[in-house]
């Protein structure tokens, strides 16, 4: 990935939702990343990101679209801090929600126990954490599985939890890396997902991430 063709899109139909004059929630510049793989004589250096720059303002939704291996997930991981970068600058103001491409969950813990852990991570009080979890379970329609362990869940339900954990603290910046992989909902949900954007800047939650396989949502 050489650079991002940044097109600003309002996150819903309300023109007041997007404030282009406001300070960006995320500003990145000159991000570079290479991976070194294999041993001599098959040692290779793969340059993935070359001088990526990007700004996301409050209420903005940006989709990153690219071929397999183009560096979408790598860029996300660098922004959240899961990967080190070779060069570049990242300025992030406000809280962060991250939904990784592969659900990073604990197989032996239940859905409710995951919500409890992440409520602690986000410094949510007990009541606030429970309320947020209840809302998300209802919104994403997996309340009946709340007492199930992850090992007992289907791939789609795992992905719902993966997404819900990123949303539960109403983050200022939301990074969704293929949030719908393996995720089949009802007909209504599928139709809604085909709409370009369905972010809700009032709640800070983005139920849908448009058609982009990887999305960044600023609020």
């Amino acid at each position, binding site marked *: 990935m050489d650079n991002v063709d940044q097109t600003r899109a309002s996150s819903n139909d309300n023109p007041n939702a997007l404030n282009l004059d406001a300070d960006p929630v995320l500003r990145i510049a000159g991000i570079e990343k290479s991976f070194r793989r294999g041993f001599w004589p098959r040692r290779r250096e793969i340059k993935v990101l070359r001088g990526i720059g990007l700004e996301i303002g409050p209420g903005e939704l940006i989709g990153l679209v690219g071929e397999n291996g183009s560096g979408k997930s790598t860029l996300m991981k660098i922004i959240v801090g899961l990967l*080190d970068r070779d060069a570049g600058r990242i300025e992030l103001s406000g809280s962060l929600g991250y939904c990784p491409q592969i659900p*990073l969950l*604990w197989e*032996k813990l239940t859905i409710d126990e995951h919500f409890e852990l*992440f409520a*602690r991570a986000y410094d949510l009080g007990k009541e606030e954490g429970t309320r947020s979890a209840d809302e998300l379970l209802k919104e994403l329609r997996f309340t009946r599985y709340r007492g199930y362990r992850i090992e007992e869940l289907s791939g789609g339900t795992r992905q719902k939890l993966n997404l819900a954990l990123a949303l539960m603290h109403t983050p200022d910046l939301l990074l969704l890396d293929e949030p719908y992989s393996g995720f089949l909902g009802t007909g209504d949900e599928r139709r809604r997902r085909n709409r370009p954007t369905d972010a809700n800047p009032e709640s800070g939650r983005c139920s849908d991430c448009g058609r982009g396989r990887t999305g960044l949502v600023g609020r």
Partner: protein
Amino acid sequence: MVRALTAARMGFREQRRHTLLLVLLVTVPFLFISWSFAITEPLPRQILLPGGDTLLTTMKDLHGAIMVPITVGFLAGLMGLFVVQSALESDRRLVVAGFRPGEVILPRLAVLGAATLVVLAVSLGVTAIDFTPASWAPFIAGNLLIGLIYGAIGALAGVFLGRLGGVYLMFFLPMMDIGVARNPMFFDGAPQGWATVLPGYGPTRLLLDGAFSSSFHAGEDLAIALLWLAGLSLALALLLRREVAAER
């Protein structure tokens, strides 16, 4: 602190739900230790103890006593491997979400320490059926140190070698280190030069002193074992911090 306690609670709960692992922790000591006592003939065997004394004992007692640290080292190593390796990626996500690295690492180490104590308790309980050490304190201390040292080695192996490579190492290393390199059944109790640089040297000498001598002669061996434990614990803490910390 509240976060660390929540993480510890979840960590213990998670391990408690690994039914197969719990079965392994209880049955392996019974199989390894009791079987060793049962199948070994009580033939006389002279060994050299720490402090220079020689002792006439039996192969049966020797085999049983040396199977305790092999069992503890093997199981603690596997626990270290699984406790740390299986949760590493998810723990990183927790750090991204707001936990401090220490609030994730300390609970994992607490779980590992507790698992080592379970392995030790079961192994000593099984041993007590067939064998009474001359002095329990050094025997317990030596085995505890073996468990902690190999628990740390298992955790490090999990990070560097992955699950499969770590399991291979845990099958091989405790058996070579404790079961072959310094086993008084093969040598006279004074390990070969190369065996003294392996992690099991200090604690095994300590526990053999406790197993066969009522007076304590293994101060130097205890110090070596503590040095190994301190070095490995530090390496593990630094490595885990690097692995889970968010890069910003």
